[in-house]
C-alpha cells in the first residue's frame, strides 16, 4: 500500500475533478462536498475521460454517452454503461490528498 500525493485539497474545489496519470492508468479524483474519491478515469463504455464529465452529488456523468457512475463505489448507474470502474483508496494528510494507485479494485 503506497499513498502518493496527488494535489492539495484547494486545487480541486467541491464539485470539481482532477485527472491524473498513474502506473494503473489514468485516475480521476473528485471532490464531493469536501469528501474526496478516486476512480478509474476511463469510462467503461466509451473510452472517454470521466474527469471531464458532469459531477452531480456523488454521480459522475460521462460527457460522451451520458453514462453515470457512482464515484463512491465505481458502479455503473445508467446505460449505456454496464460495467463498473475501479475505485482507489484516498487519504488526507493535512491539506494534501493522497491516492493509493496500487489499491485499485472493483467494489463488492
Amino acid at each position, binding site marked *: 500500500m503506497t499513498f502518493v500525493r496527488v494535489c492539495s485539497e484547494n486545487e480541486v474545489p467541491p464539485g470539481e475533478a482532477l485527472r491524473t496519470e498513474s502506473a494503473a492508468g489514468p485516475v480521476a479524483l473528485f471532490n464531493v462536498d469536501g469528501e474526496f474519491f478516486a476512480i478509474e478515469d476511463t469510462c467503461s463504455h466509451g473510452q472517454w475521460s470521466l474527469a471531464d464529465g458532469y459531477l452531480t452529488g456523488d454521480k459522475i456523468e460521462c*460527457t460522451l454517452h451520458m453514462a453515470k457512475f457512482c464515484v463512491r463505489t465505481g458502479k455503473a448507474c445508467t446505460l*449505456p454503461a454496464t460495467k463498473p470502474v475501479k475505485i482507489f483508496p484516498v487519504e488526507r494528510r493535512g491539506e494534501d490528498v493522497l491516492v493509493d494507485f496500487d489499491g485499485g479494485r472493483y467494489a463488492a
Partner: protein
Amino acid sequence: MATDPWKSPADLFDEAAGIISPSIFADRDIYKLELERVFSKSWLFIAHETHIPKTGDYFATHMAEDPVVAVRQKDGSVRVFMNQCRHRGMKICRTDGGNAKAFTCTYHGWAYDIGGDLVSVPLEEKSFVGLDKSQWGARQARVESYKGLIFATWNMEAPCLSDYLGDAAFYLDAVLDRSAAGTEVIGGITKWVIPCNWKLAAEQFCSDMYHGLFSHGSIFTAASIPPSSLNTGRQFRAARGGHGTGFFVRSVPEMKITNAGERVAGYDPVADEKAAVARLGTRGGLFVQHMTIFPSFSFFAGFNSLRVWHPRGPDKVEVWAFTIVEKDASAATKEQLRISSTRTFSPAGTWEQDDGENWVEIQRVLRGHEARRTSFNIQMGMGRDYGTDPDLPGSKRQALSEDAARGFYAHWLTLMTQPDKAYAKGGNPLQAAE
C-alpha cells in the same frame, strides 16, 4: 437580352440593358443551382467572435441550408463543421449554442470531440473491423475571421477572406473598427422567417437607398431626419465580388434616440461619433449605412443590426439578426443601442416591418405565371456620371442608384454560369470584369 422561359441563368439578367427577370426570385431550379454555385462557392457569415469566447463554446448555425457547428478550440482557433453524423446523418448538435466537451449523435452514439473528429463508436471493438475513425470525422469547412466576424466556406479554391472582401472591407470597417477595442455582441439573436426570396433582402441592403424615401418616409418624418441631410448620399459597388453599400455622409447623431423613442440617461451620441471620426475619418460619421457582403451577410450601421439571410427555398428566407457595439462603449451607449436596434431592426421593428411588407407582397405576386414572365427595370443611375469622392474610395456621389444592385447580380450571374471561374484558384484576384 433577358428572356423567360429561360434556358440559362444568363437569360435572366442583362446588365447592359438593365433588365432582370423575376424568375430569379421564384424559380425552384434557379434556387437549386444557387445552393450549388453561389452558396457552396462563396464565403458565408457564421458568427461573431464574442458568440463563442471560451474553449468548447459552440454556436449552431447554417451555411445556406447546410447545418453547421462553430466551435472555439483549445488553441483559440475556430472550427466549423457539418452538424451531421457520418454514420446515418443525424445531427450531432441539437441545441442552439453553449459549451460542450464533445458532440454525441443521439441516434447510435457516435461521438465527436470539439474539433469535430470522431472519437468514439459504440461497440467498435465487437462489431467493426479496421474502422479508421480518423477518416470519419465531421466534414470541415474552411474558416477565417475579419475584425470579429467569423466566415466559412466549402470552397477550398476560394481566395482568402481578405481578398474576397476586397475593397468592400474599407466600408465594413465603418461598423467593425470604430474603436481599437473592437466590437462585442449585445443581447441574443433574433430569428424569424420572411416568405420572400433571399435576394430581395440581400440586394436591398447592398444597394437600395431609393426605397427609404418612400417606404420609410413616415420614419424619416417621425425621427426628425432633416431632408437636407439626404442630399449627401454615396453608393459603393465593389470592383468585384458583388458587395455593395450606400449611406449619407452628413451625420444625424441623435438618430439612435429619435428612433428609440427615449434617451438613455448619460448617452452622448455626439461624443461617440467624434471618437469614431477621429479614428476612421469620414467613415466614422456615416449615416443610414446599409451594406451587403455577397451573398447573404448584411448590416445596417448606426443601429448596428447585423444579419445573415439563410435561404429556405426560392420563396422563404430565415433571418438571424443580432446587435454589436464597441467593447469599450459606455453602459449608456450599449443600452441605447440595444433599445434602438430592437425598435428599428427586429421582427417588430419599425424599419424592418416596412421592408418585409414589400418583400412578402412581391413574392406573393410571383406565384402568378404571367407575373414571373414580366421583366423588371434595374436601370437607375445607368448613363449618369455622379463623380467620385476621394475620402471614400470606389464610391459615387449619389446614394440613389442601382449600380451596386447590378454589381450584386453581375457577380451572381458569373457564379451561376461560370462557377469555376468566379473565384480564381489560390487567392486573388476574383474575376476581373464584372
